[in-house]
C-alpha cells in the first residue's frame, strides 16, 4: 500500500505509485520480458490466465503445396465475395440509370422482377463467401491448438470479505433495531411504487360503459347494403345464395362487428328450418341474416356449403348449420351465430328491425349479463 498524506489541506504530499495494475510485474522485469519470444510471451500470458496450451498442430508449412493450395482457395473466395458485393451495388445503383428500371409495374416481369432476387442473391452470396473464407482460413491456414482452462469455484476469502462488508454496513445502519425507519421505508416504497405506475391508469377504459361489446351499428330501419353501398330487395338473390351485407351508415362497411350474411334458403331448407327457440320470426320469407363474425375467435365465417347448409369458419374450422339457427355443429365454436332481425321497408328494401339481440363475436366473461 502506498501511503498518501492525508493531513487536512494537504495535496497529498509524497505521491508514490503503487505496484502496476494486473500482471505479476515483480516476477518479470521488462528486460526479461523483452528477451522472450512471441510464442513464449503468449504462453506465459495464457498460463497466467489459467490456460494451458496442450497441443498445437501447426498450419501448413510455408511454401508447401498444401499451403499454396489453401491460399489460392481462400484468396479466390474473398475475391468472389468482393465481386458479388460490387455487382450487388452496381445493380442496386444502376437500375433505372444504365440498367432498366427496378420498379415493379403490374406485369411483374423483366428486370423489375429480377431486381430484388439479384440484389439479394449477390448480397447474400458476398456475405456467405466472407463467412466461408474466414472459416476456411482458420481451418486450413491457422495452427490448430487445443487449450485447457481451469474452472474455479467461488473463493471462500472473497465470500467472507465481501459478505462482511455488506453485513457490517447493515449492522451499522441499525435498520433491524430502528423499526420506525423500516416501517416508514416500506410505506414510502409502496407509495412511490404505486405513484410510478400510476400514469398507466391512462390506459384503463371501462368496457361496460355503453356496452360497446354488445352493440353494432345495426338498428331499426337501417338498410342492408352491399360492400359498394347498394341496397338489396327480396328476389335479388337466387335461392341458396349468400351475400355479405353491411349497415347503411357511414363507415358501416368497415365496422368491426357489423358484417352480416344475408342468406336465401332453398325451399327444402325452408322446410327443414328449425330456428332457435324464441327466434322463429327473425327472418323475412325465405331470407335469414346471421352475423358473419365467428363466435369462436371473431374471424369472418366465409365458406357456405349449400348442400349441407353449413357455414365454415376458415380460422379453426367451426361449422354452423343455417337451418338450425346457425348452431355450431362441429369445431371449437360454442355459440350459434347471432341472427339479425330483418324486414322490408316501404320502398321494398331489406332493413334491420333492431340491433342483434345478443353480443356478436367472441365470448367473454360477462357477455350474458348485458
Amino acid at each position: 500500500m502506498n501511503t498518501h498524506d492525508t493531513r487536512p489541506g494537504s495535496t497529498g504530499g509524497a505521491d508514490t505509485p503503487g505496484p502496476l495494475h494486473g500482471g505479476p510485474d515483480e516476477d518479470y522485469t521488462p528486460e526479461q520480458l523483452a528477451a522472450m519470444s512471441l510464442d513464449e510471451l503468449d504462453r506465459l500470458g495464457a498460463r497466467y490466465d489459467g490456460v494451458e496450451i496442450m497441443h498445437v498442430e501447426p498450419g501448413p508449412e510455408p511454401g508447401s503445396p498444401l499451403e499454396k493450395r489453401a491460399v489460392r482457395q481462400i484468396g479466390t473466395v474473398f475475391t468472389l465475395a468482393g465481386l458479388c458485393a460490387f455487382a450487388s451495388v452496381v445493380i442496386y445503383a444502376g437500375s433505372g440509370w444504365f440498367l432498366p428500371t427496378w420498379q415493379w409495374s403490374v406485369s411483374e416481369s423483366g428486370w423489375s422482377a429480377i431486381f430484388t432476387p439479384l440484389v439479394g442473391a449477390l448480397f447474400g452470396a458476398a456475405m456467405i463467401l466472407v463467412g466461408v473464407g474466414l472459416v476456411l482460413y482458420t481451418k486450413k491456414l491457422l495452427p490448430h491448438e487445443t487449450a485447457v482452462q481451469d474452472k474455479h469455484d467461488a473463493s471462500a476469502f472473497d465470500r467472507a470479505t465481501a459478505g462482511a462488508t455488506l453485513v457490517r454496513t447493515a449492522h451499522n445502519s441499525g435498520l433491524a433495531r430502528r423499526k420506525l425507519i423500516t416501517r416508514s421505508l416500506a410505506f414510502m416504497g409502496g407509495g412511490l411504487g404505486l405513484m410510478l405506475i400510476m400514469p398507466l391508469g391512462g390506459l384503463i377504459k371501462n368496457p361496460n360503459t355503453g356496452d360497446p361489446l354488445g352493440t353494432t351499428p345495426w338498428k331499426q330501419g337501417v338498410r342492408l347494403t352491399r360492400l359498394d353501398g347498394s341496397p338489396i330487395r327480396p328476389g335479388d338473390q337466387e335461392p341458396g345464395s349468400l351475400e355479405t351485407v353491411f349497415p347503411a351508415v357511414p363507415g358501416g362497411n368497415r365496422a368491426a362487428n357489423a358484417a352480416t350474411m344475408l342468406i336465401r334458403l332453398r325451399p327444402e331448407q325452408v322446410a327443414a328450418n328449425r330456428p332457435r327457440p324464441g327466434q322463429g320470426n327473425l327472418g323475412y320469407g325465405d331470407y335469414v341474416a346471421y352475423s358473419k363474425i365467428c363466435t369462436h375467435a371473431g374471424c369472418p365465417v366465409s365458406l357456405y356449403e349449400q348442400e349441407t347448409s353449413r357455414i365454415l369458419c376458415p380460422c379453426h374450422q367451426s361449422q354452423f348449420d343455417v337451418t338450425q339457427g346457425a348452431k355450431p355443429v362441429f369445431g371449437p365454436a360454442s355459440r350459434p351465430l347471432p341472427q339479425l332481425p330483418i324486414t322490408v321497408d316501404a320502398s321494398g328494401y331489406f332493413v334491420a328491425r333492431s340491433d342483434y339481440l345478443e353480443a356478436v363475436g367472441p365470448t367473454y366473461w360477462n357477455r350474458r349479463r348485458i
Partner: protein
Amino acid sequence: MARTATAPGAPTTKLGTTAAELDDRLVISGWLRRTMNKVYPDHWSFLLGEIALYSFIVLLLSGTYLTLFFDASMREVAYAGSYAPLRGVEMSAAYDSALRLSFDVRGGLFMRQLHHWAALLFVSSIVVHLLRIFFTGAFRRPRETNWTIGVVMLVLALLMGVTGYSLPDDLLSGTGLRIISAILLSIPVVGTWVHFAIFNGPYVGESIIGRFYIAHVLLIPAILLALIALHLIILVKQKHTQFPGPGRTEHNVVGNRLFPTFAAKATGLVFLVFGVSAALGGLVQINPIWLWGPYNPAQVSSASQPDWYIGFLDGSTRLFPAWDMNLPGNYTIPALFWPTVVIAGAMFTVLALYPVIERKLTGDTASHHLLQRPRDVPVRTALGAMALTFYTVLWISGGNDVIALKFDISLNAMTWVGRIGMIVLPPIAYVIAYRICLGLQQHDREVLEHGIETGVIRRLPNGEFIEVHQPLGPVDEHGHGELAYGGAPVPKKMNQIGGARRAIRGFFSPTENPAQVELEQRAEDRGLAAAEGDRELTSSGRPSEGGRPSDGGRPQEPRD
C-alpha cells in the same frame, strides 16, 4: 507510468506505440489478454445460440431500416403508389407505407423480406438451441438462471414475431389481430378490461398498430437486449459446459482460445447468418402483403397460416372442444381461454421451471459442467420426446385444413386425429424414446466389454466361426474390456479408432505425397497399432496429470 523510448520492450512500430498510448490511458491490456485467452469448447451444437444472437443483430439492422419508411398509423388513406391493382383502394396508412416499402423504396422489398426471414431464423435457432440445452442437461446447476432467461427470451421472441407480423395491417395480419383480440377477451374476470387497455376500446379501434409498433421496435427489443447481455455475462462468468471426453473434467474447459480461432469462426458465422438471411430475403418471397389486400373485418383469406412458431397455438385452438363454462351469475369462461392462455401459459411455465422440477425429482443439487448424452438420462430424454410429440401434434393440427385439402381427408377426421393424437401419442413417444435410450446404453456397454466388431470372421480349430472383436483397452483374463463408461461417445467403427489411414488431401489430384503421409503417420504414432500401445485411460484426464484432451480427428476414448 513514464515510458522512455529506450526502455526495454518498448514498442518500436507505429502500431505498437499507438497500442501503448492506448494502454497508458485505459490500462486495458490485462483485460484484453484475459479475454483473448478465454477457452471455448468446440462443438457444432454450441453454434446454435450464436446463430440466434447474430440473427438478432440482423433483425436490429434491417428493422431499423424499415422504421425509416414505415408509418404505424391506422389513418385511412387512398393508395396512390406504383402497385396498380390496389391504386385508389382505401387502406390504413400502415398498409400503405408497407406497400410503398415494397414497391417504391429501392431495395425496400429486399429489406422487408430479409427482416422476415431473419425473424424465422431467430426463433428457429432459439428453439433448437433450447432443445440442445435440454437434452444435454446443460440447464442443471449452476445454469438454471440462464435457462430461465432463455425461456423468457423465447416468449419475447414470439411476442416480437406476433407484433411485427401485425404491423403491415394487411388482411392476414388483421385476421391474426382479431384472434389476439378474442384471446384477450376470453380471460375470465379481467379479459374485457385488458382488451380495452391494450386496444384502447373494442376491436379494432385506431390505436393498436401504433401500440404494437412501439412494443415491436422499442419496448421488447430493449428488454431483449438487456436479457441477452445478462445471458452472455452469466455465460462468460460460468464458462461453457462441455461434452465429456479425454482430458475434460468438471473443473476445466477444453477447446480453442477466443483469439484467434474462436473469434475468426464466430465472425465467419456472423457473415454466414447475415448472408443466408439476405439470400433468402432476395430469392424467396415471403409475406407478399400486396396479394392479401388491406384489412377488412368482413374478409378473410382461406387457408391463412401464421408464421411457424405460432402454429402450435393455432393447432391447440382448433383441437380444443367447444366447452364454454357457464358459471352461476351468468358469467362465462369461454372455451377459447383454455387452448390459448392456459395451455400456452402452462407450457412455458413448465419449461421455465423444468430445472427446478428435475432437481426436486432427482435430488441432484450438485454443480455440473460436463454435459450428458441424451441416452444416459432416459427419463429426461423421454420426457422431452413426449413434450415434442405433443407440440408437433398441435403444430400439425395448426395446418389441418391444408393437409385435409391436399390429401383429400375430411376436416372433421383431421380434427379428431389431432384430438386423440395429442393425448395418446405423447405417452407412446415416451416409451419408445425410453427404450431407445436403454438400447443405446446397452450397446455402448457391449462394445466397451467385447470390443468393436471388425467384420473379420475367423474359423476356430473346432470349426466354429467367430467374429473378431477389437477391444478398446486392456482386457482381463476372459478377454473382457476393463474400460468403464465415462459418458463420452464410444467408438463403434474401426475407422473411429484409426483403423484407416487418413485420406490423402487433394480434390482432383493429390496435393500430398502418399508415401510421405504414411511416414508422417508412423512418426506421429497414429493408426491402430500405435493406438493400442500408449493409452492414458487410467489417469483422470486432467492436463496436469498428463491426460490428453481430444482434438476432433483423433480416436475418441472414453474418459477415466
